[in-house]
């Protein structure tokens, strides 16, 4: 294998690289996860158009599952909107933290508002790791293509799940639905070098279920603010201590 000469060659294009990146594990996982969502849609008595519109416009699985589940048990629109809003508030800090990596003065402002729609756990976690290694001028195209491929995978997964509902044995469906949280967990386990991040993840994981039991509606948001702030403060204290010692 001629590895040396290849290293000096420029990669074909950021968009092509993104397509290749997305079509690997991230695309497969999201497709499979949305197969689970598609069958949930059908089992809840909803049609394929409803499922596809939910995926196209919501594009964040936990909020979509909450919406379909609550609708199926006859919850009011206000209850559903509140539950979805509280589940998806995480998207706000996620967008805030990825935007500086995408900053490009040549691009019109609306691009960023459009790209924000494809910020979700998978694109965010992979983007936060991948983007810093790219040239600043290539990042927008990489992220747009990456998001577009993942978005297409979720649409295809939703449709496939809808048609496969009832055909796939129940344990397999459960395994596919379970793939989503497991993949997220491993994405975070993959990169645990930053102390503040490790503290926030650990405190959030421990506090989250407890506060969820105490206050099902607001538990998630309360955890994010409390555990996140605590992690931030602890990290500062630890940083100051090492600085004093050094």
């Amino acid at each position: 294998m001629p590895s040396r000469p290849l290293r000096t060659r420029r990669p074909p294009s950021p968009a092509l690289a993104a397509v290749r990146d997305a079509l690997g594990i991230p695309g497969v996982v999201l497709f499979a996860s949305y197969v689970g969502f598609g069958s949930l849609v059908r089992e809840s008595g909803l049609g394929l158009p409803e499922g596809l519109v939910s995926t196209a416009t919501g594009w964040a699985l936990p909020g979509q599952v909450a919406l379909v589940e609550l609708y199926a048990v006859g919850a009011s629109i206000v209850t559903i909107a509140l539950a979805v809003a509280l589940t998806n508030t995480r998207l706000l800090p996620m967008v805030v933290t990825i935007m500086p990596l995408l900053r490009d003065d040549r691009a019109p402002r609306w691009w960023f508002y459009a790209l924000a729609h494809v910020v979700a756990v998978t694109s965010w976690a992979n983007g936060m790791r991948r983007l810093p290694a790219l040239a600043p001028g290539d990042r927008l195209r990489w992220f747009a293509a990456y998001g577009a491929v993942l978005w297409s995978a979720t649409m295809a997964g939703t449709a496939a799940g809808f048609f496969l509902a009832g055909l796939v044995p129940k344990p397999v469906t459960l395994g596919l639905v379970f793939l989503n949280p497991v993949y997220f967990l491993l994405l975070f386990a993959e990169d645990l070098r930053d102390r503040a991040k490790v503290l926030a993840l650990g405190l959030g994981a421990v506090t989250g279920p407890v506060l969820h039991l105490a206050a099902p509606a607001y538990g998630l948001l309360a955890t994010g603010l409390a555990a996140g702030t605590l992690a931030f403060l602890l990290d500062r204290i630890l940083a100051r201590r090492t600085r004093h010692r050094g």
Partner: protein
Amino acid sequence: MADSPAIWAVLAAGAAVTYAARGLGVALSGRIDPAGAVFRWVGCVAYALLAALVARMILLPVGPLQETATGQRLLAVLAALAVFYAARRSVAAGAAAGTAMMIALAWSGLSPF
């Protein structure tokens, strides 16, 4: 319930509140210095929210996973983590192992507790 027109209003409301979080994120990002303390705090909140969400999805799930036992889900997570670390931090291997373990447990009906 499938032909109830309310579902479209529900979907529109869901889309609106979801995009509101994303759009607000873009609007705010221009005002926060990426090198500053506020930015770091926002990052911590994001990771805490994500960890809480994943923990909730595993321990207290909504949706189809409610049919599985907590012990089954924990065992599947352990299998995923064990294979992930054994396979030199391979996300693909870990995710496949976790899914396979969940399918096997759901199929057999076995649960540690």
